[in-house]
């Protein structure tokens, strides 16, 4: 997949996920009605997990699809696939959107603490991918001290990188999909990628340009996740999985998707013999809530810096655009109006993708700079409309009074029109800055970890949105309330009230 199509696909999937999310939020369907086994997965994950069938895109295929079919058959039900964003599988299964979540769901102690989780059905390895020139010097995490290492957010690999940040001082970079980490590795934006061997090998086949280090960093397992209340059903599913391991059905499925290996044979032999009841592997231990506070603080600083810089750009560019639309020639006015309409008429997410990924073959912008430019240029279009309206609201007699006093047109703009327009624009500008603070959460799609993204990571890891959500809200209010107060004070002073 090329970068542009990857970006488009990600946007489309996000919008689809949003639509599905909205629908699910309004009317949660019954999880298992009649003879159906509703199971949730994310087709964006692609083969070999779950992907849209090229022969019939309305259907899905993959080893997770086949295992779901085995489970449904074993339970005497008909499988029915429900599309869900990968990061939302846990929340959706607990909400009752479907009964079983399977789509490369990784076994973790926190997962078992919060949900009913099946026995593992596949063993994977977390492997490092590096550029061929770095193959001999970056062989493990310790070699990557001070380097940027990419992975998919909310995964075991991300947790490993967070732990390695403290111990080896590496710089973890979180992505929302598993295509762009490898694209950025090849492009030189990151120095390594840590993900499981299935995803790494799939990316190597698709695009190449990197090598996979032979020694795994850690071992993990894929499991099926059910709501905590469905533990009895989980026990039935465990029995079915053991039986399918024993009769070779799982091996046949894994072989057909080219993911069978010696480690798998060893793991299934052990699993059938002793039926493990909990996660194996080398997952990092669960972190206490206090451990996330420094990360939240760092992310809050990123949010504030990003918002201030983007707003400064938006104000400067917006003022230029507004002045051009009020004073410019017909050609200038037309070009600026087209800019405003194009920017306002397209999603800011798409603009961020185009800036960061779409233009990467021409100019390789650092993520933070791309975020500042993306948000700043987007908000400049909105700011320009505020300033244009404010400039045009200044009575003609004020401008004529300036002319009769002998001021030049520039002096009239600088001394008479702009200062009065600024007073009119202040309230909507303040609103926009508060909106920008919140919209800064969008830049996580281009790997910038800001407050909301860090909150989501925190919430996923501790299994609750209550404390992280409250902290995030408090920090946001700590920015926005003083700002609104300052703006109100300024307005009062200017109006003489």
């Amino acid at each position, binding site marked *: 997949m090329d970068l542009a199509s990857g970006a488009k696909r990600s946007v489309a999937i996000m919008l689809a996920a949003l639509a599905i999310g909205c629908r699910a939020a309004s009317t949660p369907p019954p999880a298992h009605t009649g003879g159906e086994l509703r199971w949730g997965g994310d087709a964006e994950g692609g083969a070999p997990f779950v992907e849209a069938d090229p022969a019939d895109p309305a259907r899905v295929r993959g080893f997770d699809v086949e295992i779901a079919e085995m489970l449904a058959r074993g339970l005497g039900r008909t499988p029915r696939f429900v599309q869900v964003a990968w990061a939302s599988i846990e929340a959706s299964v607990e909400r009752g959107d479907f009964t079983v979540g399977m789509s490369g769901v990784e076994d973790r102690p926190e997962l078992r603490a919060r949900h009913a989780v099946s026995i593992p059905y596949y063993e994977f390895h977390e492997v490092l991918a590096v550029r061929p020139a770095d193959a001999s010097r970056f062989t493990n995490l310790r070699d990557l001290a001070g380097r940027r290492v990419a992975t998919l957010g909310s995964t075991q690999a991300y947790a490993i990188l967070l732990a390695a940040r403290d111990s080896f001082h590496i710089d973890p970079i979180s992505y929302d999909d598993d295509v762009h980490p490898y694209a950025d590795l090849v492009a030189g934006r990151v120095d390594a990628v840590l993900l499981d061997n299935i995803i790494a090998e799939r990316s190597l086949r698709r695009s190449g340009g990197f090598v996979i280090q032979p020694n795994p960093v850690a071992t993990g397992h894929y499991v099926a996740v059910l709501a905590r209340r469905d533990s009895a059903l989980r026990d039935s599913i465990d029995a079915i999985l053991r039986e399918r391991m024993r009769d070779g059905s799982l091996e046949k499925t894994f072989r057909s998707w080219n993911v069978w290996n010696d480690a798998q044979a060893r793991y299934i032999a052990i699993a059938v013999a002793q039926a493990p009841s909990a996660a194996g592997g080398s997952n990092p231990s669960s972190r206490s809530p206090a451990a996330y506070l420094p990360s939240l603080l760092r992310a809050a600083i990123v949010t504030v810096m990003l918002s201030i810089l983007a707003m400064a750009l938006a104000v400067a560019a917006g003022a230029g655009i507004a002045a051009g639309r009020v004073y410019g020639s017909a050609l200038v006015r037309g070009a600026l109006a087209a800019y405003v309409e194009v920017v306002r008429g397209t999603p800011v997410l798409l603009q961020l993708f185009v800036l960061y990924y779409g233009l990467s073959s021409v100019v390789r912008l650092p993520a933070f700079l791309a975020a500042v430019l993306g948000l700043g240029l987007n908000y400049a279009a909105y700011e320009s409309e505020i300033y244009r309206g404010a400039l045009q609201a200044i009575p003609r007699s004020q401008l004529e009074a300036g*002319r009769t*006093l*002998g001021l030049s047109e520039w002096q009239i703009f600088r001394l008479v029109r702009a200062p009065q327009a600024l*007073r009119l624009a202040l309230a909507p500008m303040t609103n926009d800055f508060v909106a920008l603070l919140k919209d800064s959460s969008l830049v996580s799609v281009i790997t910038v970890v800001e407050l909301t993204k860090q909150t989501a990571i925190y919430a996923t890891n501790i299994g609750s949105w209550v404390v992280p959500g409250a902290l995030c809200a408090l920090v946001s209010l700590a920015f926005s309330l003083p700002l609104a107060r300052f703006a109100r004070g300024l307005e009062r002073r200017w109006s*003489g009230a």
Partner: protein
Amino acid sequence: MSDPLVVRDLGLKRGARTILDGVTFQVRAGELCALMGASGAGKSTILRAVAALEPINAGTVSFEGGTLSPGPVPPQSRLKELRRRVGFVFQAPSLFEHMTALDNVMLALVHALGWPRDRAEKTAIGLLESLGVGHRASAFPRELSGGEAQRVAIARALAPDPAVLLMDEPTSALDPARRGLLGELLRDLVRQGRALLIATHDVDFARSYADRVIELDGGRIVDAF
């Protein structure tokens, strides 16, 4: 010595509509001339044309140092002489709301004439005091009464020391007592040798304080006395 303002055969159209047609008059130094007529007669348009706020279609407007001819309004950079010699007080005072009374009066001195701030401030305070609003120098326009705002606007227009002062409907927002005060103030300006051209529909005011009255109807002069 030539008259500070001479208007000859002035014609002005808006689209196909004739607003002014063949208007000829002059205002002498030390004279208060009142333009009178019903609404739409063209009084305010004459003032706007003389101040180069609207393009004229025919005739000329002459002042010491230059002449306005038919065609588009020249850019500000070519109107420096006109701006120095012709001041304008609008019907609504049109003071700059974000500046104090003093800053309003200093603005042209500092930014159009390039005076140092201290010299401009001294002159502006002197003007405000001479017009009876020196004590309101630090007030913002929203804090001024209608009469005070008008005096500040007159001070602002007088700051560059113009030979001609144009005033549009100066009595429209004033009660009879303040009208009288304004009349006396204008007579003082005339005694200083300035030429004043005011547009008004206030017959009593014109009779009491104007040296000459020009009657307009449908954009033409119909009487002068």
